[in-house]
């Protein structure tokens, strides 16, 4: 009996005009998201390569490492284009310094503010908006619609058990709607393969998990709307309820949870932190100037190399101490801010997990490594690179102090014509190699959310099942 009912359910959905239209729309949007993603990726890679080339040209036009100003650029990652996450908000360029805080500037949205308004079409958007609506459109009248059409009574005037009917309804809907959604997703994967985007094995696995999470998110809305349909007699009411759930899930809960979290866990703004840093820095500068005046007051100025070397050594020692002091202060400020931010984010994410769409988004961002931690992970990579870069610059200039290198140069007396002719070789600069987030780390970070989606599917599946056992068939 289950087979007959399941077959009917599959046919009833697939033969419908509603399915043809909504599936076509969903398929086009999925494929479009892959297409837009691949185009964006190639565009980003072009910009990245151009920026790197410009940086190399700039450096090679110089003949003194003391004047070199190296920039590091964030390399586009393949999965970023499918799940944008915070990618477009995070700066892509960093002015590399041998010490001090490194800032990320020139984010995609700051460069193209129009995209900040309308955002990019990515797979994440398609799943959250389109898949969920797609599911609701088919689930909201799954049971009460049959009652209104009189088919429920007709079916149950036969030897059909409620359990087999609702099972066929749930399984049939999932199969008839979920499996066809795999087709545009697979076409999208083929487009990725054909577009020349270098995808590692890890990235394919992560993409597989993202698609799995997307289908789970779809399943949650489908089973939820079928459950509502089995709890409410009229399909117009269940449609309204499903729509309200959708609006809360997609629009209100994620945004509301962020607002609520900001009330529960307050975090000082970046402006406050920056002004504290600036005040500390200017105090430090004042003290430093005083020390320099004292140093010069006890010594006679000279053009010889001995003086320059002594001054350089003094600068390095002062710089080291001040840098350390500043690093400690900034570190404390940053850590305090990070802790508060972490706490706020935990609240925001915790609260937003009431919404299945938010759960999917968190999971997908973790898998694509475009989550809110992306900026901090990238900054850690930059900080690691900064150490190597500082060593390299010291090996070339004898000093790590960026802004005092010119001063050292002025007093070094080694500014010969011969040296000026030798242009710098930018390939000597250690290459910045960003380590992609490890597969294990990405999967373990998303496990909770993927698990939640599985649990919600099971919960609403059971809810629909037991609601129907009590459903008034009359």
């Amino acid at each position, binding site marked *: 009996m289950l087979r007959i009912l399941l077959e009917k359910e599959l046919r009833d959905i697939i033969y419908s005009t509603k399915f043809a239209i909504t599936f076509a729309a969903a398929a086009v949007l999925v494929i479009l998201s892959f297409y837009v993603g691949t185009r964006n990726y190639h565009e980003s890679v072009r910009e990245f390569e151009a920026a790197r080339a410009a940086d190399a040209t700039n450096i090679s036009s110089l003949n003194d490492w003391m004047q070199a100003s190296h920039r590091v650029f964030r390399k586009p990652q393949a999965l970023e284009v499918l799940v944008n996450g915070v990618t477009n908000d995070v700066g892509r360029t960093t002015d590399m310094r041998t010490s001090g805080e490194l800032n990320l500037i020139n984010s995609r949205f700051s460069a193209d503010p129009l995209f900040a308004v309308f955002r990019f079409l990515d797979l994440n958007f398609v799943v959250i908006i389109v898949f969920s609506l797609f599911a609701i459109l088919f689930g909201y009248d799954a049971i009460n619609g049959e009652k209104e*059409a*009189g088919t429920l009574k*007709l079916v149950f*005037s*036969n*030897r059909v058990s409620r359990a087999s009917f609702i099972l066929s309804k749930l399984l049939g809907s999932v199969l008839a709607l979920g499996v066809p959604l795999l087709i545009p997703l697979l076409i999208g994967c083929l487009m990725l393969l054909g577009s020349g985007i270098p995808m590692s094995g890890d990235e394919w696995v992560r993409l597989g998990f993202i698609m799995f999470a997307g289908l789970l998110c779809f399943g949650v809305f489908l089973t939820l709307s079928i459950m509502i349909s089995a709890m409410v007699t009229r399909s117009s009411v269940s449609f309204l309820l499903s729509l309200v759930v959708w609006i809360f899930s997609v629009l209100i809960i994620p945004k509301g949870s962020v607002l609520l979290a900001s009330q529960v866990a307050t975090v000082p703004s970046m402006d406050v932190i920056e002004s504290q840093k600036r005040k500390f820095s200017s105090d430090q500068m004042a003290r430093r100037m005083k020390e320099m005046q004292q140093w010069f007051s006890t010594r006679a100025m000279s053009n010889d190399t001995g003086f320059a070397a002594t001054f350089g050594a003094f600068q390095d020692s002062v710089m080291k101490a001040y840098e350390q002091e500043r690093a400690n202060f900034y570190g404390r400020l940053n850590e305090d801010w990070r802790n508060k931010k972490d706490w706020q984010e935990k609240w925001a994410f915790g609260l937003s997990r009431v919404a299945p769409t938010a759960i999917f988004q968190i999971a997908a961002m973790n898998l694509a490594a475009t989550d809110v931690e992306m900026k901090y992970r990238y900054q850690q990579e930059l900080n690691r690179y900064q150490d190597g870069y500082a060593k390299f610059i010291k090996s070339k200039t004898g000093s790590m102090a960026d802004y005092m290198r010119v001063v050292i140069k002025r007093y070094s007396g080694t500014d010969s014509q011969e040296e000026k002719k030798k242009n710098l070789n930018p390939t000597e600069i250690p290459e910045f190699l960003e380590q992609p987030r490890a597969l294990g780390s990405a999967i373990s970070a998303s496990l909770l959310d993927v698990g939640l989606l599985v649990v919600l599917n099971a919960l609403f599946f059971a809810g629909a099942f037991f609601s129907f056992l009590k459903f008034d*068939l009359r």
Partner: protein
Amino acid sequence: MLRISYKSLIVINEGTVMDQPNVLEAQKLTKVYEDGLCALDHVSFSVKAGEIFCLLGDNGAGKTTTINLFLGFLNPTEGTPFINGIDVTKDPLAAKQHVAYLSDVVMLYPNFTARQNLDFFARIGGRHNLKRDDYYNVLRQVGLQEKAFEQRLKGFSKGMRQKVGLAIMIVKEAPAIILDEPTSGLDPKAANEFLAILHQLRAQGRAVLISTHDIFRAKEISDTVGIMSEGKLLAVKTRAELEHENLERLYLDYIQGKVAA
């Protein structure tokens, strides 16, 4: 005459119904809802093979509640409905194997063709081995135009859908047939065709229970009429008893309490 063979059924001549076994039987059926509303109050009657029993009453008289109890959609507060001797409350699935049902709302599956609808309901009704031609034959019997056999039900009129519903009912070959307001919303021609098919089903020995508020059709088609009001079966009259009676007057007298039940 129906062209499909019903080997399990016997052709019954009018007048021999009394000798037949009860196929549908209501024994003191009572339904009191949780809010205290008594929808059905100790209703007893039986429908024999080859008999058309018409439950006549206004909206809220208890006709549909009676049908819902026979189909197991409701559990009686008291009493027992039997289908072919099977207690519906004890084994509803087994009982349903012996009954075919048609309601007033026959939307069916609009994305399926007439034949696909018939195929689905035939299979869940236990008829697994029917071929396309078998379905076409039944659809012809109920008077559906050939060109509509493989058309989706989306564009069907109510009369056409009702014909498909009839075909679904026929193809199950159940000894008991229950119809809830089957002619409501049908034009006179379609209603007459429908009643003609019911006569044929009776001739094949089916026990037919119809609920209606259409007094004239009730008199025209029924072997027995049960007059219901406010959950009670006030009177049961046979065709012979009604032959010289004005059923409309009788019905009004009963429901207005002018005649003792």
